[in-house]
């Protein structure tokens, strides 16, 4: 069972200019991503939107598959900056490791 954390968006502010709520889940980012892998980065952005903090930590290895190539950010029709969201999540996970 997954739990959600309603304060997660607030927690992420420390790590990036999070624009995840701008995303309307069109999937352009996942379609253009060179990884073509399991709805990446769309699924991670959805997790941010619903506050699925633990899901992100459980699947955190996936974040480092990102090449930081910027194609998703360049093509996002909502200017939600998916690349920056993923980078912010990496920072959040690294900080979490170091705290634990």
């Amino acid at each position, binding site marked *: 069972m997954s739990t959600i954390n309603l304060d997660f968006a607030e927690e992420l502010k420390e*790590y990036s200019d999070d624009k995840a709520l701008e995303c309307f889940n069109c999937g352009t980012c996942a379609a253009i991503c*060179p*990884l073509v892998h399991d709805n990446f980065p769309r699924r991670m952005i959805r997790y941010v939107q619903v506050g699925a903090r633990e899901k992100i930590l459980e699947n*955190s*290895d996936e*974040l*480092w*598959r990102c*090449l*930081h*190539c*910027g*194609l998703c*950010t*360049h093509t996002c029709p909502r200017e939600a900056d998916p690349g920056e969201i993923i*980078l912010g*999540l*990496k*920072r959040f*996970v*690294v*900080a979490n*490791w170091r705290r634990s």
Partner: protein
Amino acid sequence: MFNPRDIIETLANNVRQTTSPFGIPKFMVNKWYKDVNLPKEGEYMLITGLMYQFAPFIEKSTQYLEKYEGTKMASLLKYARYMPGYLSGIGLAMMTSGKEKKDAGQPLKDIALLLKKSKVNFAYRPDLDNYSGILLYDMGDQKGFVAHAKKIAQKLKDAGVKKIITVDPHTAYAIKELFPKYTGISFEVKSYFELLDLGSKDLGLEVTIHDPCFFGRYLKLSEIPRKVLGNLGITESEIRNKGEFTSCCGGPAESISPSLSNEIMEKRVEELKEPGKPIIAYCPICLGNLKKSGAKVEDLSTLLVRHI
């Protein structure tokens, strides 16, 4: 895929201890300038960020990572962060061939020559030329990156540097965009090809250009090398993904997953090989990664020097 935490903590530890992500002492990495007579003072300071110099060490370490990815040995990487940075760095430096290390400096000598030919007033001081910390930023070690960037930026500021020439897209992005944001210290930053004035020729050549993501999208500079080539009569082949829509070479994934990096690289090489023309890269990471495919790839500076 390796455990990202093992890779990140090892790189972060190395940067903290040695200022190099590979732990290699700078005097063993940065030697190219010894064969070139460069002034210590000038309008611009040339900052290579050591990325071209790191290329053979990246290749060597990736060869080992490739060997152990997906095996039981991969889990041993978690102990690497406890090894003193210099120790592992010197080991890596000794395992890398002298020829590869020397060859890695050639694009820098070529760039210095191109700048001289263009009558750019620039200087080089090896003591000020340091790694920018960009890998820590990309990997999400924000604290590590900011601490490192502050030291590097302050050193440049204290030396009175105001204008900088960079040679690779990662260092250019770090100094131009990230240093002002995270260190509060700004410089006027130009990529070397923005300053080139090599006259005009009618060479009638055609090449295929691979734009690095950071020059194509993040810094939006990919039109400038085309103008420099165009002035010499060198045109580009049409490929599907270029300029702002360029495709990644796969290089950024090579430490976390060499197999993923190869998969992305092979797709990109297919596109680049399609026109059947020589391939030109202008980033040391792209250059090294694309070369692994066996395709004929050379640096922009190498091509330019051959034709001036």
